Structure formats: C-alpha cells, structure tokens
C-alpha cells in the first residue's frame, strides 16, 4: 500500500464524512459513501495526481454519491424508519446537551419569523436551500441570507456557551 495514499486518506476521511453527513443525514450511509469515493480514487490512482487534483476529485465524488443516495428514495425511507436503540451518554455530555437543547429551543422560537421558518425547514426537515426556496416561494439567495442571519443570531445568544456549560456542571456537582 502506498504511503502517500494512506496519508491522503487520513487527512481527508473525517472531513469528507462530515460533509457527506450534511447531505444524507445518516452516519452509516455517509461512511459508505466516503469509502466508495476512496475506492474510486484508488482505482484511478495512476491517472490522478494526488497532490494536485486528489482533493478536488474526492470532494466532487463524495458530493455526487451523496446526491445520488438522497435521490434514491429507498435510502430516505430507511433513514426515516431506522431504529437505533443504542444511545449511551456520559452524565456530563447528557447534562450539557440537555441544557443546550432547552435553551436552543427557546432561542430558535425567538428568531424573526421568516428566519425561523427557514432554519426549521433546514434543521428539522433536512431540506436543502433549493428545496426551501421552492417550498416558501422565495429565491435561493434569500434562503441563504435568512440562514446566515439565523446562525449569527444564535451564535450571539450563545456567546456565553462556555459559561453555561460550566454553570451546569457546578450545579450537578452541588447536587451530588
């Protein structure tokens, strides 16, 4: 096995996995897609210069394979019906997450109306910009503006994030 290919794999695998997940919204599916993309790259390694073109090639491959997976309706169905029972959290993670989720739920409700609608369609329904634009009868550019605004506002509301988490931890320790 060529060392340069292995290095390339280690450099990009987790990034590409995160990328594929933003589109297919399924961890296992995303993993299969990235594996598939690397196999395609491996098969063409004699024709592609990894250093110059490898990254561009594999990002495109992941993008196209992800879109195909979403188009494949069966995948969607499986995604909706998949029942994963394992969900183990450390207490600390659990508390952090619960505190955050509770505050975020009200944070999201406090966004301006259009902004909130766009954000929910993206986050809860997993819709892409083009689909949101279509559903709401607005342009993709407007969707982009609303999403950016939503994220900025949430970020500002949660600039004290580290402090909240710390406070949550202290309150737990006190209870024990």
């Amino acid at each position: 096995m060529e060392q340069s290919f292995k290095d390339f794999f280690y450099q990009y695998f987790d990034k590409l996995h995160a990328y594929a997940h933003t589109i297919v919204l399924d961890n296992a599916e995303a993993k299969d897609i990235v594996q598939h993309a690397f196999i395609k790259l491996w098969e063409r390694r004699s024709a592609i210069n990894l250093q110059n073109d490898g990254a561009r090639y594999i990002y495109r491959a992941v993008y196209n394979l992800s879109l195909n997976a979403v188009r494949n309706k069966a995948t969607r169905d499986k995604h909706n019906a998949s029942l994963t029972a394992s969900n183990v959290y450390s207490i600390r993670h659990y508390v952090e997450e619960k505190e955050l989720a509770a505050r975020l739920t009200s944070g999201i409700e406090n966004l301006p109306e259009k902004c909130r609608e766009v954000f929910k369609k993206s986050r809860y329904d997993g819709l892409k910009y083009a689909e949101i634009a279509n559903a709401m009868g607005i342009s993709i550019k407007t969707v982009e503006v609303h999403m950016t605004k939503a994220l900025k506002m949430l970020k500002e509301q949660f600039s004290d994030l580290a402090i909240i988490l710390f406070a949550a931890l202290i309150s737990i320790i006190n209870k024990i």
Partner: protein
Amino acid sequence: MSNKKELSISLTAKYFSGSATPDEVMELHESLNDPEVKAEFDKMSKLWQASAGNNIHNDINTDEAWQEFSAKIKMKKGKTGLKAYYKYMLAACVVGIILTVAILYKFSNQQVEKQQQYTSTTISTRRLPDSSTAVMNVNSNISFPERFNAVTREVAFEGEGFFDVTPDKHKPFEITVDDIKIKVVGTSFNVRQIKQQLIEVQVVTGIVEMHSADKMISISKGQRGIYDYSGKSLGLENNTDINSFSYATKQFIFNDTPFRTACKYLEKAFHVNIKIDDSVSSESGITSSFKNKSLEYILDVICSTVNAEYIKHNDIIIIKNNNSK
C-alpha cells in the same frame, strides 16, 4: 479570500444545510487549518448539532475506516484473478447448494409446525423466525410458528404493535387480526386494534394490503387504513400520526404542537399519567424533535419552553408553572 482569519458564517450555514458545492466545502475545510477559525467553527457546529434531537453527526474512527478500506481493496484484487478452474469449482458448489436446499425444503414441509405465543406486559421487541421484528405495546398478543413454512409467513396478532418486516418477495408476510388479514412483502407499519371497535394500520415505509372478507385496500407510505367492526367496512385516509406509535420508534416530531397534545403523546408512549396544572399555558406550540431520548429529557426540554417544571412520582407526573410555587 484575502482575509483567511475569519470564519464565513454564510458558508458555514450553507455547509450545515447540505447545500454547499464541493468547491465551497473545500474552501471552508481549508480555512479550518487556522486554529482560531477552527475553534469558531466547532462552536457553531455544537450549536447546530444541539438544535435538534436527531440527525446528529458522529465522529468517525479513521483507523477503522482505513482497515475497512484496505480489506475492500484486497478483495477487489482477488476478484480479478479468478481462474477458469475456480469457476468450475464454483459451479459445482452452486449445484451442491441447490440440491441441499431442495432436500431441506422437502423435509421442512413434512415437519409439524410448533406455535410460539407471547403476551406482552411491558413494551417489548419480539424477533420473528425470518428476522422481522415486532415492537409490542403492553397487553398485546402474538403467535407464530417456530419456523415459517415455504409459502407464507403467517402471524396472529391482537393489540398494538409496530412491525418491521424483512423483505421477501416470494413469501408474503400475513398478520391475522380477527376478521382482517394484513398482507405485506417488506415494510414497516403500526397495527392498532381496539377490540370490537376498530383495527388501524399506519404505514411508515412500503405498501401494506388490508383484506376483509370481501374487500381489499392497499395502503401506501404516509396513509392509514381503518377497519370498522360495526359496519365491517374498510376506509383509507391520507395521513399518519407518527407520534402515535412513538412507543415503538422512540421518535417524536413536534411542529407547533400544543403543549397539552405533546403531553398526550408522551403519556401514550411511556405509559405514564401527566397532570397539567391550570397555571401552565398548555396551548402554547412546541417545535422540537427527539429520537431515543428519555421521558425526563423530553419533559425538561418542552417544560422549559412554556416556563414550567415537572415532578415525577412513579407513573404520575405533575407539571406546573415555574412561578406558582
């Protein structure tokens, strides 16, 4: 990209929503080589992940991924070198397997079927001989043979259950509930029977057929079929209520759902009794989704949105306003 020191929020939003092009994603990922930008991005990512109970991205183990990849590459190499000799071997094996299956098949038909029967007292999952599953709500009965025969997969059922049926085109899966036969090939759906009143089938994936003595309806994904005992009639409706079978899926999707209604769903899924004090604005809309979360977790989140708190005592939960102490 003159200013590489700052994270582009609009690009980040586009990326999180799965709407960024490959080139944009590359640009974003490259900008994360800067530790300050990376820290900012991680914070945004945490907010995004926490803003819904599902669709969470899990970190991946690259070492495991690499091992899997190496194994796949090796297999590919092996495949191309298949010689004629091996092909004959393979053909011989296939013939052997077919003969064995044929003999077993003949044998299995002569066996007397043993019937398995279960009654659920808590929500429990039953695995069937074909590896289909039935999540059974309390007070439900199921019976099926130890091994399904060669032609059909027959199950008798009473009560409420969520079925996830393994696809097998050649061997339909049939559930008998009183006078009604529910036939599927491979899908997931919820069956609910209220004795002497109705039998309801809500379909999550695929297609399900409901047969009465003289009629048949075909129910697709997102629809529900209802049998009415009194009129002996079958009806089809173009909606399902996915929160009504959360006892099995452990998934709730609230979209501007009144607080009171959300509590009703929780009562049903967790078999608890929720009392809401008059001080709580129980008509306020809740928008949130949960997957595989505990009752306590969900209550904490939804109570905080209506400024309420809850007390849990065994199966009884009392919700009241934060200030009405």
